[in-house]
């Protein structure tokens, strides 16, 4: 399958690959998987006192579209508040990366990872 240039760019030069200390009280971790293709995605955020995402990291084992979706998600999340980050939609990720219909689920996985990371952070802080 032909990948779009943006997918290839993120795949070859993924942004923000890495790991944060999941035990850090200021870090939220989202761990999600897509069983049909076996993709595993970890997305982490570090949030400051103002509730702004200072840093975001990811690690994804999966296809190019899954890697690109999570890479782009971390780029978009940085500098956003938690509430703003939660409004990021898979359709926006898919559109930006020009994902074909069969790869839309990769962007859904990234959106679910964002939500899981935000939820994990909020739970740690007793916000939900």
């Amino acid at each position, binding site marked *: 399958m032909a990948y779009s240039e943006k997918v290839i760019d993120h795949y070859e030069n993924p942004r923000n690959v890495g790991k944060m200390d999941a035990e850090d009280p200021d870090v939220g971790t989202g*761990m999600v998987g897509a*069983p049909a293709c*076996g993709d*595993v995605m*970890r997305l982490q955020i570090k949030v400051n006192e103002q509730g702004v995402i200072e840093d975001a990291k990811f690690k994804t084992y999966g296809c190019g579209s899954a890697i690109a979706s999570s890479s782009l998600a971390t780029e978009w999340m940085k500098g956003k508040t938690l509430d703003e980050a939660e409004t990021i939609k898979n359709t926006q990720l898919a559109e930006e990366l020009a994902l074909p219909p069969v790869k839309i689920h990769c962007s859904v996985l990234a959106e679910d990872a964002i939500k899981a990371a935000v939820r994990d952070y909020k739970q740690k802080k007793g916000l939900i």
Partner: protein
Amino acid sequence: MGTPCHFALFNLQPGFRLDLEQLAVRYRELAREVHPDRFADASEREQRVALENSAALNDAYQTLRSAPRRARYLLAISGHEVPQEVTVHDPAFLLQQMELREELEELTDLDGVAVFKKRLKLAQDTLFEEFAACWDDAAQREQAERLMRRMQFLDKLAQEVRQLEERLDD
């Protein structure tokens, strides 16, 4: 009349435990019987039916020989259809999957791969046992579905192990 169950095509009772070698033998026998070439001189309608039978047999075989697909099919015929594309939140298991993939990335020789494969096989066998023990219990459907999803991840991991083996073997 609906489509016969995949298991019935092979004269088997629905179940998770399956002798794959026996299944393969039976598949080859049946495939010969329904092969469209045998109907080359038959009517158009018979040819079409032969083609459909052959496709159904193939589909059934591919479903039954794969553990995660067989598991998903068993859940479906017991009235618990689960979608193909879904996001799984199973943190401890996913973390383990991530660590296993990291370990796999570090492997550089076939001996290391062989050890890894043994561990993977053990993990798969444990899952198979657990699934076989609970899939037909309606009260344990959620657990059965979780186990089926885990099988899917391990199946993918096994594919990656095979690919690495081929690369190292060259």
